[in-house]
């Protein structure tokens, strides 16, 4: 048999239950597995083969519910309703079974082709509890497979169970929630109404949603289009008036349910979950004695939390900056050798000078400089960050700092985005997805360019050390403080300008501490963060450095003042005056827009010292003689904050899809950088520096 049968499986589950781990383990292509809620928002797909079946896995966003209150919930619910998946694989966290069953019971209400993967079985054992899987299976009425995703246990059973559910003739009868006499009766009334109109599909479910005042379903009734809930074409013929009549009736019935229909429905569902939980789980040790409790007592301590949080952030940054030096130098010399080899090869082939220049000095050298400067710190930073995240430390930072962020109108998760932005603004912008609140998410995205990323720190550090020598550490700290202050200020201002009316809020699960899974940490770092960011950086950096080379060398053989760069310098010169910035500096800053790392070579080019981005030693000597410390400090201040790099702008567009926010993410840093630089420079002049 070469023709394999295809089974489509939708994976649903709460955030942070190891859904992605199961997805990776089954499909082989690994995916981001985080230790904080709400990570997977995009739809990820993967294929694996078992027996004669090709199984197509679709990873749905992690949700606590299918209530259609957030984008994630709507995405997950619509997919389950769509009829596309043959089976729904519901991944359940065994350590918080009761809460997880709330989602399970909502899924089984929609479809009976459900397989439950009871994940994190190792952790529940460590916690000292037992789950009777057989009893759970019987209670739920759908197959339950215990798994330990990170060790690959239970996965083949899972695949078999999926196949048997997809192909089985006889149907499973999942347990039905008893919503109480009133609700049941009202739901039945509405069902009858709908049947009379010729709607037979998902009657019960739709009736319950009407009683619950589900925004999507109510809207569908208002507009007279049930297409997103029923596949049967006939339902499209039902008139708007008839549907509105049903809706009106539902509204009346809902109001007569006391005290509150919505609360009552969720309460009843949780009641069943509670019952099942107590039937199948045996808790052998009270929760207060878990190690998570003991660690949290210190990590979230009133006093100790501060030095611990600060220390960890400083250590991560320090390791990143220090540790990256050696591999960066090695890479740089390696690439230098590569450039030399290709240059001599091209010379031997009698290639014309412009081709050699464009290819070697533009493309190879430019791109390699970016890689050499960016790659090592990124790998170190993201490994450290992911490790912290895997352990579960990162959510605690959000918990500790929420009150602080509330003062400027944001919330704790914003600090996580900012932290990630220290590694790379692009990753920071992508991380903003963990924030459910749209307002806070936008603010986190727009303010993330104000965080000084590794690229800027690494490149700036060379100049800091050159000009401030012994005080380099102090100056670095000053820039850190300026950056944090800028983020807080921008958050406050943005809140006042755009979001005065919108309420904030902070609801976050604090997952238990877990031993990190090194393999996953490293894989995630390399493939999903470093790989993505680097490939994007190279895609943008390569043509940019190529163009910069052209600008610096055309027209051919002209003196520096007459090249495109020379002219640009002259044009920009007056603009920088009040900030103590020269035309050379501004042009160099323009050149660094593709990647901030190339600031020093860019300066070399704009000062007319050389025509390529290759070597930076000569320029450093030159700068040390021609710049005062005030000039250097002004330049660095502006450089640290002025504009996001092109890749960040692109990521901002991807995440917000609004020109308004792109404009803000350019405008805010530019204004803040100009202001601070102006104050620094003019203040310095006044002090007579």
């Amino acid at each position, binding site marked *: 048999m070469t023709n394999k049968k295809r089974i489509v499986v939708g994976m649903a589950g709460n955030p942070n239950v190891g859904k992605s781990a199961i997805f990776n383990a089954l499909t082989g292509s690994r995916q981001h597995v985080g230790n904080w809620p709400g990570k997977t928002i995009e739809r990820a797909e993967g294929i694996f083969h078992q027996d004669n079946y090709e199984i197509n896995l679709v990873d749905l966003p992690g949700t606590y519910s299918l209530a259609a209150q957030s984008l994630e919930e709507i995405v997950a619910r619509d997919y389950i309703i769509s009829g596309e998946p043959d089976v729904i694989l519901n991944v359940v966290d065994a350590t918080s079974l009761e809460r997880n069953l709330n989602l399970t019971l909502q899924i089984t209400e929609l479809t009976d082709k459900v397989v439950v993967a009871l994940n994190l079985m190792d952790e529940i054992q460590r916690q000292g509890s037992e789950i009777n899987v057989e009893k759970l299976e019987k209670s739920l009425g759908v197959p339950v497979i215990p798994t330990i995703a990170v060790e690959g246990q239970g996965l083949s059973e899972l695949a078999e169970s999926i196949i048997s559910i997809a192909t089985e003739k006889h149907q499973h009868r999942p347990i039905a929630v008893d919503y109480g006499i009133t609700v049941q009766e009202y739901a039945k009334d509405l069902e009858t109404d709908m049947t009379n109109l010729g709607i037979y599909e998902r009657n019960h479910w739709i009736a319950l949603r009407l009683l619950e005042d589900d925004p999507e379903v109510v809207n569908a009734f208002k507009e007279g289009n049930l297409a997103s809930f029923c596949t049967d074409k006939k339902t499209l013929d039902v008139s708007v008036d008839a549907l509105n009549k049903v809706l009106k009736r539902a509204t009346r019935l809902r109001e007569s349910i006391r005290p509150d229909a919505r609360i009552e429905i969720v309460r009843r569902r949780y009641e069943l979950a509670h019952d099942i939980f107590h039937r199948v789980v045996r808790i052998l040790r009270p929760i207060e004695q878990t190690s998570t409790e003991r660690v*949290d007592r210190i990590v*979230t301590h009133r006093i100790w939390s501060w030095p611990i949080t600060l220390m960890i952030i400083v250590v991560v940054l320090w390791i990143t900056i220090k540790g990256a030096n050696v591999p960066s130098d090695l890479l740089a010399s390696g690439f230098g050798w590569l450039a030399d080899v290709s240059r001599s090869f091209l010379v031997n082939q009698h290639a014309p000078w412009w081709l050699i220049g464009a290819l070697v000095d533009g493309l190879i050298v430019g791109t390699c400089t970016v890689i050499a400067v960016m790659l090592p710190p990124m790998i170190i930073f993201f490994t450290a960050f992911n490790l912290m995240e895997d352990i579960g430390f990162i959510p605690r930072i959000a918990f*500790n700092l929420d009150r602080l962020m509330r003062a400027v109108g944001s919330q704790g998760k914003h600090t996580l985005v900012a932290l990630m932005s220290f590694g790379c603004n692009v990753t920071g912008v992508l991380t903003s997805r963990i924030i459910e609140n749209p307002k806070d998410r936008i603010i986190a995205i727009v303010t993330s360019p104000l965080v000084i990323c590794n690229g800027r720190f690494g490149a700036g550090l060379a100049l800091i050390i050159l000009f401030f020598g012994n005080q380099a550490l102090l100056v670095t700290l000053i820039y850190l403080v300026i950056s944090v202050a800028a983020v807080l200020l921008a958050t406050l201002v943005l809140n006042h300008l755009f979001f005065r009316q919108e309420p904030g809020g902070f609801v*976050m699960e604090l997952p238990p501490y877990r031993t990190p899974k090194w393999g996953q940490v490293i894989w995630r770092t390399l493939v999903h963060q470093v790989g993505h960011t680097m490939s994007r950086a190279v895609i943008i950096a390569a043509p940019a450095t190529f163009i910069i080379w052209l600008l610096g060398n055309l027209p051919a053989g002209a003196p520096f003042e007459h090249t495109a760069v020379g002219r640009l310098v002259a044009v920009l010169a007056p603009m920088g005056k009040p900030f103590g910035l020269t035309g050379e500096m501004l042009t160099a800053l323009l050149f660094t827009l593709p990647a901030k790392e190339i600031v020093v070579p860019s300066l070399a080019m704009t000062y007319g010292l050389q025509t390529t981005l290759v070597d930076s030693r000569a320029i450093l000597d030159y700068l040390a003689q021609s710049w005062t410390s005030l000039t250097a400090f002004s330049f660095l201040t502006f450089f640290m904050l002025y504009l996001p790099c092109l890749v960040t702008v692109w990521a901002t567009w991807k995440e917000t899809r609004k020109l308004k926010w792109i404009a803000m993410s350019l405008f805010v840093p530019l204004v803040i950088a100009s202001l601070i630089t102006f104050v620094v420079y003019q203040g310095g002049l006044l002090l007579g520096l």
Partner: protein
Amino acid sequence: MLIFSHWFWSVLSFFFAALWLWTFLRQHREKKKKLPSVSTDQNYIEAEDALKAAYHLHEKKKDWDSKDLSLILGISDNLTNGLVDVLIDFKWAKKERKGKLHLTEKGKQRGRELIRAHRLWEKYLVTRKGMSLDEVHSEANRVEHEITSEELEKLDNELGYPAWDPHGQFISEPDGKTMSLPKHSLSEAWQSGSRMRIVSLNDEYSPLLAQLVALGLKPGVDVELVNRKQNILSLRIDDKNIPIAEITANHIFVAPSPILPMPLGELPIGSRAQVTDIKGGGKHQRRMLDMGFVPGAEISVIRKAPLGDPIEYRVKGTAVALRQKDADTVLVEELNDK
């Protein structure tokens, strides 16, 4: 020519005179009609105060008349009758057979609004301005007439949708839903040896209120009923005996302890509680429900963040961090026994 004839001028002046008279009369009439809706007007305030009293009456008994109202307001029958007429003028009340009165829907609505405004404002004064319980009543009595419904909603949001005013009286939702608690005055509920929780104090008599608060008889406090000798009732709070007059006890309302739901955010660290209701509505309410904060769920308060907010709770086997303001939308009953 017609333009210069006398006829023309007299007709024209007559026309203008008529026009002026007409507009003047119209303006005058409108002014007269407008008068009551100027919210700062003294008459209007009196009318609203009367409405409030009438609303309390309406909540207590089905049938009431102007005599009941005059008793509550403490003014003469004549004055009360005038007020009743105003209430009817405003279409807030209707007269029925035998002089019985009853509130119209509009009257009930306005009455609810006033009481809600009063209680929210008291809550604001106590929690934000640090005023004492006995000071706030008169201040709230003034503000309740002036505050607009938008301002009120903003205040409600700022205070975190409180369920209780500082006197322990329930703050209803804007749509008027109130939770009815079985409450009785202390003297009615007397049963020697039993424990009761103070639900609310009658806040109409501030000197008495100040005295009760000074004695430690505040809403939310549990009291033990020791004995009753003639007109003196003896209570015990935290090993302290307090004798009070029966007439005073009429102004203290109690319920069997513990029945008073309190906002989750006010629970001390380490305590456990059971959810009774989730307020707030909308997405927030739904999210809280889905996180496991459903009526009947057991919650333990684990810890506060280093800066005092947010607070970590354990619910349904998971740890969830909530801001105090969000937690306050969850009403709970504290569980004392293990």
